[in-house]
Structures are given as structure tokens and as C-alpha cells.
């Protein structure tokens, strides 16, 4: 669909970006120490840090991807929410306190605290960079996706705009400004999702008698876009979709329910009939054609598992394993994400780390509950773009008012800023503190450490922009699943065994991180999903049985660590960590 750019959205977004960049410059006006740049002096208040956890974690994938998945496929998007939140339990109960007491600036510090080994620092720094880059891709793609309807500018402009804003935020005041940007973003996101949810409930559900004629979008070999055979224009465009066909019988002839309570909303939706749309692609001499057709379905079908993860209903074992593997990776992945882990160094002690995690879980949990309603609200809003699942949330807002659309789009865009700045910060620490200072052994004074971190941040910003443009045609939550798989496979076995198994050796850690990372990466590159969506090959050509590697590669990391540790002699007991 074509979108009109909204001046209100542009001004809201521009003022937000100017405000956060201005804030960054203000926070960074004093000279900085390395502890200030990398860990915000360890002086962030636990509540601020808790909301910043939410701002760091609730990425474009959470907001846009999950809403879109629920809007188009029903319940299955909520499974991502459940997995994303469950990961915090591992972070809080197992990882938070030891990582706080062992490390200083980066996750490699914590893993290496006992051994002082360059090999550990090198392997962990590389895994940090790989995970951060895989996580960055969907964020940047999301930014590009949003700029199209928001400002009417091309995808690449959105990517570059976010890249520049984030690099400025990180370079001016490092972790201090990153924290504040994430705090502001986290609060705005949860607040406005709450506002939108209450508007959905107040509107209730309404039967919509939109046209159910199939629609075709074609791209000719010359690159012209046709809708139902005619050139695409503002007046001749794909119709918005996603409607309610019938209310439950108890409403009789009424076409609208009026305001509903949250549980009432869910239960009425279950008894309603809903029209969802799906596209089918074909190619011939006149170009590529996607035909979108409607299906009327019972609410009960949409609100049970199996709409997106088809394997849950086909009964094929490989598909079931694929799903189990994803849910395991989401559970284990959160506590292994470098940009989340570094946030534990910004508070003063273990008690503060604990309190901020609880605040984080509360904010993130509330957000995911709201997302369920946003997704279902979008499903029946009659405003969905059949070509883009990622636009569901902003278009839902548009079905209420243009101003709300502007606000939600601006917030979605800033969502990207918060998460990307955290990722660039984690990558900058890995390059400057772990690689340059500790692995290459280049001595640096405090000011040089900060300068080196800033140079790394600029470099990472440029890499992020390039990747955001290259990977533009992906569903964003799909990619985040990859990042979680790699993080969980590379980092979690090393982290857990180091903390709880005294016979772990440095060789064990190095090999677990390296094998976990390479195995999960190789598996992903060979998976059916990648064959189909990246290389454009047949799914059947893939040599691996299912797409998500976690179920195999997470245990593999543990086994490699145990075997290698037992084979290598434990070093004489050093100082206790």
C-alpha cells in the first residue's frame, strides 16, 4: 500500500530525536572516564535501570513483529511474547548477581574473571559482535520499514537516519545517554500501548462489511507496480484488510458491541467470525504476482496455537522440534544477550541489580499483555496492509486517528533508537575494551579507552546501516529468533558452567563459545528458512532437519565444555573470583 506522509508525525519524531540527541550532548558535556563511558559510573538508580532494561529489550521485533504476527496469524505471536518474557527468569535467578560481582565493563570480563586468558576474551568478544550484529539487522530493517509510511521517504533513508542518530547518542555520552534514551523510550512505549489498548476496549468490536474480492499486486519486469492490473496510485491501491465478519449469536442483529472489558473482549472475539488475508506469490513473463485472498475463520481457531507455527497441527516431528527449539532459545537467549548483560554494570550492587530486573520484568510483562490486545485489535481494525505484517500496530493507531498514528509511528521509530544504541554500546565495549585493549594488549590510558570505544561505535553504526539496507525484505521477529539462538548456544553454556561447575577450564570455555557460535551459525545458514527466504532455493534442498538450531546447539555447547574441561588439566587454583 502507498502511504501519505504526515507532517504531525514528522514533527513529533523530529522533536523527539532532537530532544534525545540534545540530552546526550548535555550528559556528555563533561570529560568522560572509561567507567563513565562503558558503565555509566555504576551510578544509575535501580528504577531508571529497570525501565531502561525494558527500553533496551523491547525492540522493533517486539513491538512491530509480534503485533503483526498476532494480527495476521492469531495466538502464535503471543508465544513469542511468552518466550521473550520467560528468558528474564533465567537472567534474574541464575545470571544477574554473579555477572554483577565478577565483571567490570563487559560480559567477557565476567567470563574471564577467573582465568585471565586472551583466548577467552577473543572468543567472547567475537560472539558478542556476532550476536549484536544479528540483533542489529532486524532493528535497522524495522527502521527502514517505518520510514516509508511515516515520512514518505525510501527505506534506506530510515536506516541511515537511525544509524546517525544512534551513533551520535552513543558517541556523546556512552552508557549514560544510552540509559536515558532507553528509559524515555521504555516509558513512552508502555504508556502509549496502554492508551491504545484502552481505546481498543472502549471501541469494542464492530462488524465490518468490506469487500472480500481477492486483490492482486504485480511487479512488472521493468519494476512497475500494478494493483489488479492497473498502475498503483493513491486512488487505486490495495484495500486495507482485517475485518470482523460476524459477532457472537448472543448479540442478535447488533453490529457493534460497545465498550468491552479486557477478558470480555477476548471471549467475544473467540465467539466471533474473523476474516484474515494471506498472499500467494507466482511468477510469469509479465512479472511477479501476489494474490491476496480472504478466509473467514472462527475466533476459536485464531486464538489457539498453530496459526503461524504450522508444524503444531501437521504432526510432523521435525516441525514440532523446530518449535521446541525456538522456545528453548528464547528461554535461554535473554540471559546471554550482551547488550542486556552490560546493563548490570550500570547499577551499584547486587541488590540494585535484582530490584532493577524486577522493575524490568514488570514493565516488559505489562507490555506483552498490551501487545496481545494491540495485535487482536489490529486483526479486526479493517486497516491492515496485506503486504506488510510489520505495519499492523501503526495502522491500528491510524484506524483511531491520524494524530495517534503519528504518535505511535514516532514511538515505534524511537523504539529502534533505544535498542540499537544498546547494541552499538555492547559492540563498542567488545571491540575497544576486549579486543583492542585485552586481546591485542595495546595499553591505553583512561581517555584513550573512551576514544577507542567511540571510534568503534562509529564503525559499528556504519556496519548497522549497511546491513539494514541489505536485509530489507525480512520479517523482523524471524531474525531476532536467530540472534537468540546464537546468543544462547555460544554464551549460555560457558556462563552457566563457569558459575556452577568448579572444574571448568579456560580451554573448555573457549571451545564451548566457539563451537556453540559456529554450530548455530552454520545450522542457520543451512536451514530451510534461510534457503527459501535468503538464497531463494527450495526448502527441501536444506540438509538440516529443522530451522531453529537451539535444541541441538545449546546442549552441544554444554557437552563440548564438559568434555574439553575434563581433557585439559585444571589450572592451579588462582584467586577466588
Amino acid at each position, binding site marked *: 500500500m502507498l502511504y501519505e506522509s504526515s507532517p504531525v508525525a514528522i514533527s513529533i519524531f523530529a522533536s523527539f530525536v532532537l530532544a534525545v540527541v540534545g540530552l546526550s550532548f548535555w550528559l556528555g558535556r563533561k570529560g568522560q572516564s572509561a567507567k563513565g563511558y562503558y558503565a555509566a559510573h555504576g551510578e544509575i538508580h535501580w528504577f531508571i535501570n529497570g525501565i531502561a532494561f525494558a527500553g533496551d529489550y523491547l525492540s522493533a521485533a517486539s513491538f512491530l513483529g509480534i503485533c503483526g504476527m498476532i494480527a495476521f496469524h492469531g*495466538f502464535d505471536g*503471543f*508465544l513469542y*511474547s*511468552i518466550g521473550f*518474557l*520467560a528468558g*528474564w*527468569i*533465567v537472567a*534474574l*535467578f*541464575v545470571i544477574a*548477581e*554473579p555477572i554483577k*560481582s*565478577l565483571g567490570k565493563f563487559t560480559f567477557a570480563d565476567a567470563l574471564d574473571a577467573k582465568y585471565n586468558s586472551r583466548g577467552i576474551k577473543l572468543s567472547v568478544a567475537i560472539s558478542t559482535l556476532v550476536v549484536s550484529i544479528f540483533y542489529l539487522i532486524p532493528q535497522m530493517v524495522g527502521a527502514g520499514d517505518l520510514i516509508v509510511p511515516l515520512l514518505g521517504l525510501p527505506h534506506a533513508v530510515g536506516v541511515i537516519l537511525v544509524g546517525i542518530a544512534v551513533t551520535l547518542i552513543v558517541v556523546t555520552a556512552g552508557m549514560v545517554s544510552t540509559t536515558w534514551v532507553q528509559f524515555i523510550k521504555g516509558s513512552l512505549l508502555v504508556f502509549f500501548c496502554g492508551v491504545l489498548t484502552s481505546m481498543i476496549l472502549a471501541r469494542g468490536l464492530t462488524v465490518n462489511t468490506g469487500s472480500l474480492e481477492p486483490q492482486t499486486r504485480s511487479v512488472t519486469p521493468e519494476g512497475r507496480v500494478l494493483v489488479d492490473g492497473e498502475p498503483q496510485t493513491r486512488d487505486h491501491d490495495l484495500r486495507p484488510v482485517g475485518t470482523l465478519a460476524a459477532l457472537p449469536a448472543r448479540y442478535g442483529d447488533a453490529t457493534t458491541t460497545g465498550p468491552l472489558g479486557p*477478558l*470480555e473482549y*477476548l*471471549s*467475544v472475539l*473467540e*465467539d466471533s467470525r474473523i476474516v484474515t488475508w494471506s498472499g500467494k506469490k507466482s511468477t510469469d513473463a509479465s512479472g511477479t504476482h501476489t494474490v491476496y485472498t480472504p478466509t473467514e475463520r472462527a475466533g*476459536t481457531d485464531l*486464538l*489457539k*496455537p*498453530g496459526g503461524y507455527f504450522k508444524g*503444531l*497441527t501437521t504432526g510432523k516431528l521435525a516441525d*514440532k522440534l523446530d*518449535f*521446541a527449539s525456538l*522456545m528453548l532459545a528464547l*528461554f535461554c537467549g535473554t540471559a546471554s544477550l550482551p547488550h542486556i548483560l552490560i546493563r548490570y554494570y550500570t547499577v551499584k550492587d547486587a*541488590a540494585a541489580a*535484582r*530490584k532493577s*530486573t*524486577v522493575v524490568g*520484568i*514488570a514493565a516488559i*510483562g505489562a507490555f*506483552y*499483555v498490551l501487545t*496481545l490486545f494491540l495485535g487482536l485489535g489490529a486483526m479486526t481494525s479493517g486497516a491492515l496492509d496485506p503486504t506488510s505484517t510489520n505495519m499492523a500496530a501503526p495502522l491500528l493507531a491510524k484506524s483511531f486517528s491520524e494524530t495517534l498514528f503519528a504518535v505511535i509511528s514516532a514511538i515505534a521509530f524511537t523504539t529502534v533508537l533505544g535498542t540499537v544504541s544498546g547494541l552499538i554500546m555492547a559492540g563498542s565495549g567488545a571491540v575497544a575494551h576486549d579486543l583492542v585493549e585485552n586481546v591485542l594488549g595495546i595499553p591505553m590510558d583512561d581517555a584513550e579507552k573512551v576514544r577507542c570505544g567511540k571510534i568503534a561505535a562509529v564503525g559499528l553504526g556504519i556496519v548497522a546501516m549497511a546491513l539494514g539496507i541489505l536485509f530489507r525484505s525480512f520479517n523482523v521477529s524471524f531474525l531476532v529468533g536467530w540472534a537468540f539462538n546464537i546468543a544462547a548456544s555460544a554464551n549460555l553454556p560457558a556462563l552457566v558452567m563457569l*558459575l*556452577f*561447575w*568448579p*572444574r571448568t577450564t579456560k580451554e573448555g570455555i573457549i571451545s564451548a563459545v566457539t563451537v556453540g557460535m559456529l554450530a548455530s551459525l552454520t545450522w542457520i545458514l543451512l536451514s530451510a528458512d534461510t534457503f527459501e527466504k535468503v538464497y531463494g532455493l527450495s526448502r527441501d534442498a536444506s540438509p538440516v532437519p529443522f530451522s531453529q538450531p537451539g535444541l541441538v546447539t545449546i546442549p552441544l555447547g554444554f557437552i563440548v565444555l564438559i568434555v574439553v574441561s575434563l581433557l585439559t588439566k585444571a589450572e592451579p587454583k588462582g584467586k*577466588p*573470583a
Partner: protein
Amino acid sequence: MGWNVAEHREPGINGPGRAARIGFGLFWIYVILYFGFIALVLFRPDILSNRPFGGVNLAIASGLGLIAAALLLSVVYMVACRMVESPGGERR
């Protein structure tokens, strides 16, 4: 091969290791809830279509329940840690 939780706690705080043991207990409770739910999704999705709570099906109710349980357990953990770290409330 022994699992030694206490070893990596900083000494000096009252009850080192006890906080970690509480954390572990709560962790396993959640593991059972979470993977129990995943098992239902995988093997008995028909159960999740039941609607015992006023029209909301079990799939959604248990999803919301898992989110609420995460928050509840984390609060329990925070309070329990504060109690073991300050016997008699003498901390600070």
C-alpha cells in the same frame, strides 16, 4: 562433579549462597511451568482450546498466567533475598 553455588558469592554478606539457592528453587518452578506449557502446545493443543474461565480459552489464560507468574516469582525472590541478607532487619 559437584554443583557449587556458594563458591562464587562474595564473602561478607550474611547468608552467601542462600540467595542463590532460593533463586534456583524459584527458577525450577518456572522451568516446570514454562516447559509444561510448551509440552501442552506441542502434544495436547486440544486441552488449550478449553474455556474454563468465563470464555477465555486456556491457551490465552496460561500465557497471561506465565507472565503473571514471572512477575510474582521475581518479587518473591527480591523479598526473600532481602530477608536472608539482613537477618533481624539489621542491614544498613
